[in-house]
């Protein structure tokens, strides 16, 4: 067992636009909380602007967006741009849901580090986040 990190990872889980499918994001939220992470939910029908503000205000480390409608090609890059413009480009961006493979490069270019499509095992998401968090904490504690 690796040593428990000094502070738990904080993640904002978000839903954008009119897409109100919440089963996937609920399962992920519960699984991440079980794994000791601090999970904040944006609520439904949010704009990229509102989610960017919430991410900054809540000082989260990660923003994860769930998308089960075609809005992802427009909304997700906009969210990434807003975060960069507001000096919050260091937050890890993740997306999940129904995202066709042909749209993945577009989202990766926009700044999304990883796309977890429907059916992803929550243990895979947790392992990914734990690895990233451990790396970040190490980088932070290493004197420059």
């Amino acid at each position: 067992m690796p040593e428990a990190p000094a502070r738990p990872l904080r993640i904002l889980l978000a839903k954008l636009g009119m897409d109100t499918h919440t089963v996937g994001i609920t399962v992920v939220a519960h699984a991440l909380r079980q794994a000791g992470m601090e999970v904040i939910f944006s609520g439904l029908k949010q704009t990229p602007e509102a989610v960017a503000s919430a991410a900054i205000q809540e000082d989260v480390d990660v923003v994860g967006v769930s998308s089960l409608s075609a809005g992802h090609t427009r909304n997700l890059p906009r969210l990434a741009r807003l975060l960069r413009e507001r000096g919050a480009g260091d937050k890890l961006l993740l997306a999940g849901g129904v995202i066709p493979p042909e749209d993945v490069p577009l989202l990766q270019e926009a700044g999304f580090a990883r796309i977890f499509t429907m059916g992803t095992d929550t243990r895979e998401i947790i392992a990914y986040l734990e690895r990233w968090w451990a790396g970040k904490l190490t980088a932070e504690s290493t004197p420059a």
Partner: protein
Amino acid sequence: MSRPRDHIATPLTAANEDIASEAQRWESETRAPYVRKHPERRDPFLTQALRWPIRPLYTPADLAACGFDYLKDLGFPGQYPYTRGTQPNGHRSKLWTMTQVTGFGKGEDWARRARYMLEQGLQGLILEHDLPTTNGYDSDDPLVEGEVGRAGMALDSLEDLERALDLPFEKLKYLMSVCNAPQPVNLAMIIAALEKKGVDPRNFVLHIVNGILIEYTCVGRYIYPPVHGLRIATDCIEYIIRNHPNWAPISIISAQLQPAKANPVQELAFSMAIAMAYIDATLLRGFDIDTLAPYFHFVVNVDMDFFEGICKLRAYRKIWARLMKERYGASRPEALKICMMTSPTTIALTLQQPLNNIGRLAIMATACALGGAGENMTTPLHDEAHALPAEDAIRVGAALQHIVAHESGVAETIDPLAGSYYVETLTKQIEDAAMAEIDKITRMGGALRAIESGYFQQALGREQYERNKDLEEGRRKWVGVNHLVLPGEQRQIEIFRADQRMEEEQVARLRALRARRDNAAVARALEAVRAAAREGTNLVPPCLAAVKVYATHGELCNAMREVFGVHTPDSQLTGV
């Protein structure tokens, strides 16, 4: 894990005592030694959704242990408590009505497709709106960009509905509309459009789902805080019963709780508690229960656990009858007989190896039939998870119900599973647990309070997590997903890409309307809606006046937003 409730066992008759002691002997002398040599496949065996333990064998002793009483618990078909069916002759005189939902309409294509379906002999249609409409926005609202006309028809003003309802009304006898949060606006637009077409409302049935409380519980297409949502729904129920008594003002779509992973007990209890909230609110408007209760419709899904599904449907009939009689004092048979449509659930279907879904649909449709089917059964299509259904899928879907009805023999005698030790035990356990849960919700203050405190949402959130864990950790085997997976199978998902031009046209049309109409009249009409919202008078009449001067859908929803505020639930109130 939930557990069936313990029972005070009814005294064992001499025969049951014999059976119980023989069963014990069988267990120790015959089964146990065998199991020692041949360990069981699972430990424990559990039902799919409730995760209740399943015993290896059920006998009359189990019925006695759960307090089963034939006359009290079953009775006879067409008689209280209707466990064996609301029809006196089951499906021997008349089969259930077989229907099929085939994709969505979008934009103006809706009328064209609707005309085609009517030419094929259909008499009823479902009008599905896009998400901007069901969430109460006009098509030019910045929040809805890219969503206009996608999941259904865009509706901004009466003009849109006049175009959509340009149909041969001598053929169209039934229209179902799903538009819950903005219900008075939607209802007003349909009434105004029917008036303009000269349709005699007595010769036509409009069925509005009007299901706002389930939106707060799990679907998410809400606008106003729950207390106002309930008031709005009640206004619509009252308006329809008083003005169009042959129409259908309210449905409880339990089939939306099921995909949100409500287990059968939660699904039954939340649905009934929600029905009771509408009933209580409508009774205060001066109706009596014998008039009101027959207006309620239920739409119920079954999942793959055959017996959970069958027992749930039997329990639905009995619990409705008991609640109406015991809690509300209803006496007319029409008030005690649940009006129900059943359907195999889409969430049991897989994207992987889609032909396997035909097998799943056959099992679930058979469960629906054995559970009593209701007046109506609708079956989804095996390739539905992919994209718009192909013609073959539509044909197979239509044939499926006929195969169940005419080839399997399950419809030839009434309630053929009655008396099964397992079926009756599970039916009774589901009924008892659901009644206990209904009592708990009643003590909380009813469904409205359960929503406002997040009780329903959190219960479903936990269930979603636990059920997913069952799958991830292999306790539930799902062919194609975590069992018999085809290596390298490409999952095809088609996402419908919005036609940008269609959205632009819809927005241009809306803006032209705003420039052309009598804006002073619109402003006065919107003020009347605000006044009704504030004063608590019925919202439908002022909405009707407003849509006739072409106030838009979004403007009317906004007028009510100004009075009611908006619902912005957090983690606690969404269960996320």
